[in-house]
């Protein structure tokens, strides 16, 4: 679109009125705004003692967890859909034959590099059995890079830690929601 296109309506800046040119009304207006914010409730929290409020934990994309089925086994069937969907290539799965009769494969090892992860939630979207989910845990820290590569046990322990506060999302897949 060129600047002289007839569809463009050119707007002129409104000229200042006398009250605006006298400066004082605007001065008072500005000062009252700042003074109001000076005493208004604060939006930040004292973090370690006080947790920030997560709006909706069900849609928050925090640390991953691997869900367990009602028998306490890992729900994952090692289909590699999450690893394929992952844009950051941070999921590493080693599949092997399942010891259980209800599925063919299960993950022998399941690693997520939390430092590479971009927390986009594509793995959760891709998973056909709702085995991988993102929790609302937001403070993910570690002292080394190795520590930040979460293996299967660690991801299952995240599930054990969060299952009461955040039930599994899909009821059809055995979740409680």
């Amino acid at each position, binding site marked *: 679109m060129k600047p002289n296109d007839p569809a463009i309506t050119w707007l002129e800046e409104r000229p200042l009125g006398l009250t605006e040119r006298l400066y004082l009304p605007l001065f008072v207006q*500005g*000062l009252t705004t700042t003074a109001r914010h000076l005493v208004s409730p*604060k939006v930040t929290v004292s973090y370690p003692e006080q947790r920030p409020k997560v709006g909706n934990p069900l849609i928050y994309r925090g640390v991953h967890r691997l869900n367990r089925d009602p028998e306490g086994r890992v729900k994952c069937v090692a289909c590699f859909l999450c690893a394929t969907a992952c844009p950051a290539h941070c999921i590493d799965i080693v599949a092997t034959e399942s010891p259980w009769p209800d599925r063919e494969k299960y993950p022998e090892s399941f690693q997520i590099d939390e430092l590479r992860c971009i927390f986009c939630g594509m793995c959760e979207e891709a998973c056909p059995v709702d085995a991988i989910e993102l929790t609302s845990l937001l403070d993910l820290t570690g002292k080394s890079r190795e520590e930040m590569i979460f293996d299967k046990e660690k991801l299952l322990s995240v599930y054990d830690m969060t299952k009461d506060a955040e039930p599994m999302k899909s009821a059809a897949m055995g979740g409680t929601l």
Partner: protein
Amino acid sequence: MNALLPSLPTIVALVKIGLLVGGLMTAAAYLVLVERWMAAWVQDRKGPNRVGIPLTKIRLFGLGQPLADGLKIILKEDFTPRHVDKVLYTAAPVVILAASLAIFAAIPFGSSLPAIPALGLTGEEPLLVAPGLDVGVLWVFALSSIAVYGVLLGGWASNNKYGFLGGLRSSAQLVAYEIPLGLGLLGVVLAAGSLKLDTIMDAQASTGVWYAFAQPLGFLVFLVASFAEAARLPFDLPEAEQELVGGYHTEYSGIKLLLFLVAEFLHMVTAAFLIVIMFLGGWHLWGVTGAGPVETWLVAFIRFAVLSAKILGVILFFMLVRWSWPRFRFDQLMNLAWKVMLPLGIANLVTVAAVEEFRPQLVAALGEGWAKTAAIAIPWGVFFVGWIAAGIFTPSGTDNTPIRTHGPLDAEHALGAKHALGGSKRELVEV
């Protein structure tokens, strides 16, 4: 008395210097904390509230923060770039801090103490490092101009374009605003008939009319000019971070930067002192402190407390304004100084001079009480007239309409004719 021992006035002066420098440094450190709190609260944050007593878990609302800040900046690397003029680069922060501290030699930080015969002090002891300095106001303004020198030296010696631009802006701004500052001050000096700051306070205390009420225009001009002199927002162009990185102290780090920052804060404190002493009555407050000699320690303390409270109030105002207004553009800054503040300052000076000159005639014509009222009413009339005139003629305004190379397409434009843009005063420029 032994000739090697310092005399009593010397000891007294040294004690006062110690108290003043120590007090100012502590105050500057804590004012940084207050400024950070204000910044945080205005932005709906909590602000620094963690650091308390070192090595304990006691927090004290973050009152230990200045210590941590100071330690941090002192322990930082004091890096000197290779391309600077080493002598001037090192001298600049020293010059600016020394000048900002020396200003306080002539500024009273209280009224005076009652006589202490036990120490050999028989008369009232004024809370002023250099009592009897008859050119107090001149001293303050001479030294505050030297403080500008530090900024210039720092910006120039840095051999850095940002530093240089910061120094240039600073020099232009401070030269421009020295004039309204001086005009605002002249009205007070004229009315009080003295260049001594303690006499100016006494004059306000004895009449009970602060000069802010007697000379509103002078107060306005002085207030705006002292914001500019202290390089506080909305006049902080010498160190506009968005344009100049750090301005004149871009190349400074570590303790040299600390000296610059402390000096900057002291400029604000000086400005607050001057505003309070010259326009807001100093230690005088109706019904609490009146004129007269200081006989008891209680009176001395109350006067000191009133003065400190007023100064703190002015400093809080400085900080609140910082978050209320955006920075001026440089042409607006200059227009404000030369086209608004200078004429208003002159108008104030003429009014004050006329009122002081014709005061006997006023008293003769109207009687004592009405003459007093008229002496206040006339400057207020000038104040309103001057302000409204400045608003109507807007000499500080600039045309912000964009230069357009294209207007609405119409028949004339289709023919390629050159024509004025409808509604705008600008000529259409064909490209």
